[in-house]
C-alpha cells in the first residue's frame, strides 16, 4: 500500500494546495482572459492571445474615469473612517461614560445589518434631507460602514495596551501630546493600519450601497456591473489583474520587511 502511505503523509499539503487553488482560480481566469481577443462584445469564451487591452487600458469610454473616482472615494473614506474610528475606539476603551456599553454594541450594527437594507435606508435619509446624490453621499455612506471595522481593529489593540506605558512616558518628562505621539500612537499603529486597509478594500469594491446612493455618478464596481449587461470589455480584466498584482506585491513587500526585522532581532 505505498500509495495510501504516501497519501497519509501528504494529506495536509494536498488539502492546502486544493484550498489555495479554489481561492486563486477566479483570479487566474481573470488574468488569462485579460489576454483574450474576444469575438463580439462578451469576453466569456477564449479566442486567441492578444495584448491589445493591456496596451490600451483606458480604451473603453468612461472606465478609467470611474476607476479614478473609486480610488478617490476609497482614499477619502479610508482617511475619514480611520481618524473617526480611532478616536471612537480610544474613547470606548479609555473613558467611562453613560451608555458606553450601548455605543459599543451600536458600532457593530452596520457590520451585522444586511447591506441592502442599509443602502435603502440611507437613500431614504438622503432623499428626505434633499441631498444631491453623488460623490458626497457615496463618501458619507462609505465612511459610515467602514467605521465599524476601524473601531473593531483599533479597539482590540488599545485594550491590550499596558496603561503603565503611558504612565512611564509621563514619568519620563513627556507631556500629554508627546506621550500620545511617541508612545500611544506608535503602539496603536498596527491596529490603525489594519483598520485603514480594511476600509480601503471595502470602500473600493462596494457595490450595493454605492449603487443606491450614487445618483448619476458611476464608480468602478458600478461600471463593471453596467457593462456586464451590455458586453464586457477586456479592459475590465486588465484592471482586475492589475489590482490583484498590486495587492500581491504589497503582501510580498510587507513579508520581506517583516522577515528582515525578525532577522535583525535574532
Amino acid at each position, binding site marked *: 500500500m505505498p500509495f495510501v502511505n504516501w497519501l497519509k503523509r501528504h494529506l495536509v499539503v494536498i488539502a492546502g494546495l486544493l484550498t489555495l487553488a479554489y481561492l486563486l482560480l477566479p483570479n487566474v481566469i481573470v488574468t488569462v482572459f485579460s489576454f483574450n481577443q474576444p469575438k463580439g462584445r462578451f469576453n466569456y469564451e477564449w479566442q486567441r492571445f492578444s495584448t491589445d487591452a493591456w496596451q490600451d487600458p483606458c480604451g473603453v469610454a468612461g472606465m478609467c474615469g470611474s476607476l479614478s473616482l473609486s480610488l478617490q472615494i476609497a482614499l477619502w473614506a479610508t482617511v475619514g473612517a480611520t481618524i473617526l474610528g480611532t478616536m471612537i475606539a480610544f474613547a470606548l476603551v479609555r473613558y467611562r461614560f453613560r451608555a458606553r456599553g450601548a455605543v459599543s454594541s451600536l458600532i457593530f450594527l452596520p457590520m451585522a445589518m444586511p447591506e441592502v437594507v442599509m443602502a435603502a435606508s440611507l437613500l431614504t435619509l438622503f432623499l428626505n434631507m434633499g441631498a444631491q446624490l453623488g460623490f458626497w453621499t457615496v463618501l458619507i455612506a462609505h465612511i459610515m460602514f467602514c467605521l465599524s471595522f476601524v473601531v473593531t481593529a483599533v479597539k482590540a489593540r488599545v485594550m491590550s495596551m499596558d496603561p*503603565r506605558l503611558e504612565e*512611564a512616558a*509621563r*514619568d*519620563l*518628562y513627556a507631556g500629554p501630546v*508627546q506621550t500620545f505621539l511617541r508612545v500611544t500612537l*506608535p*503602539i496603536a499603529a498596527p491596529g490603525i493600519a489594519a483598520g485603514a486597509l480594511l476600509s480601503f478594500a471595502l470602500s473600493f469594491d462596494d457595490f450595493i450601497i454605492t449603487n443606491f446612493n450614487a445618483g448619476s455618478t458611476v464608480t468602478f464596481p458600478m461600471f463593471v456591473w453596467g457593462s456586464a449587461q451590455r458586453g464586457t470589455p477586456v479592459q475590465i480584466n486588465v484592471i482586475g489583474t492589475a489590482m490583484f498584482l498590486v495587492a500581491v506585491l504589497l503582501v510580498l513587500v510587507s513579508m520581506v520587511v517583516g522577515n528582515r526585522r525578525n532577522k535583525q*532581532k535574532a
Partner: protein
Amino acid sequence: MKTTPDNSGDVRLSGISKTYGSFTAVHPLDLTVPEGSFFALLGASGCGKTTTLRMIAGLEEPTTGTVRLGDQDVTHLPPYKRPVNTVFQSYALFPHLDIFENVAFGLRRRGIKSVKKQVEEMLELVQLGEQARKKPHQLSGGQQQRVAVARALINHPKVLLLDEPLGALDLKLRRQMQLELKRIQTEVGITFVHVTHDQEEAMTMADTVAVMNGGRVEQLGAPADLYENPRTTFVANFLGTSNLIEAEVDTKSGEDIVLKAGGGKLVLPEARCSAPATSGGKVLVGIRPEKISLTHADDAGSIPAGRNRLTGTIADASFIGVSTQYVIDSPVCDELSVYVQNVERDGRLVPGADVVLHWSPAHTFGLDAAQDIDAGTEEEVAA
C-alpha cells in the same frame, strides 16, 4: 553619602490620603524620607503602599495633604514636571523602541540633543552595552529590569521610585538584583523609595522600612529595630515569624514586668512592652523562634536560673540543613515555632518528646492584647 546640603532630595509627605469613592486606600499619613536614604514601603497587596508611591510620582492626585521634594511643593505638578522617576512593576519598557531609545527617552523629552555618550555610559553601568539595538522583548527578565533602572536613573532624578521592581524575577536573580540595586544606590547617592511585599527584600536593601497595613503606616524604623522591637502584632508576624502568647500582668519588679501564662511566670522588660501594663491586664508576650533554646525535659535542671521557661511536647520537626524547625504544643499556646541551629543535635528531640523552651527575658517583647493575634501571618495575608 549626601552631596548637596540643601536637602532637595528629601521627600516629605504631610497628611496625604487617597480615597476612591467610599474606599480609603491611604489614610492621612505623614512621612519624611531623608535625602540619600534607601527607604522601603513594605506591606501586603492592597495596603496602600503603591498608591503612596504613585502620589509621590504624580500619577495619583492625593485627596488631602501635600507632597514636598526638598522645599518645593509638588502636590499639584503633573508627573512630567517632577524631578522624580519611577521603575515600574513589570518595567513598562516601550515595546516599539530599542534599548538605546528606551534609555534616551527622558533625555530627548527634555530637549537634550547629544544623548549618545550619556546613554552608552548608563548602559555600561548596568552592563547592557551590547544590547543597545535590541528590542525589550528580546531581553531576559533581569536585563529588562536593568534597562528600566537605567531609563530612570539617566535623568538624575532627585528621588527614584521603585514599584515592586523585582517581583517578576526568580529567587536567585532577585537576590542578585537586590545587591545590584543597593550598590547603584550607594554609588549615585540618590534617594530611593522602594515598594515591596517581600519583607526579606525590604530588610536586605533598605536603611529605613515603613510597614504599611490597611492604608496606614504601622511602624517605621531600621530593619533590625523593626525586627527586634515590633510594636504591633501585624509587624511582629509580617516581618519574620513571632510566637505570641497571651499572658496576664502579675506584678512589676524594678524595670521588669512579671506575667502569668498558664501555670508559669514570664519576665518582660518594661521598656520592650508597647502596651500599658496594669496589674491584672492582658498582654501578648512575643518571642522570635530563633531566640528560644530547647532542652529535653529530663535535663530541665541544667537550665540556668532567670530564664523564661515554658513546657511542651514536640509536635513536628523539620530538618532544614543549617537549622531544625520545631513546632511545639504547649499548654499556653498550640503551635510555638522554635528554630535550633544544628550545632550539636540532641537525638532525643523528636516528635512526641517532652521539652522545656527557655530564653533570655531580654529577648521578650510585649504587645497590646486588644489586637488580632493573627494579623500579618501568612494565612491571614493570603486570605
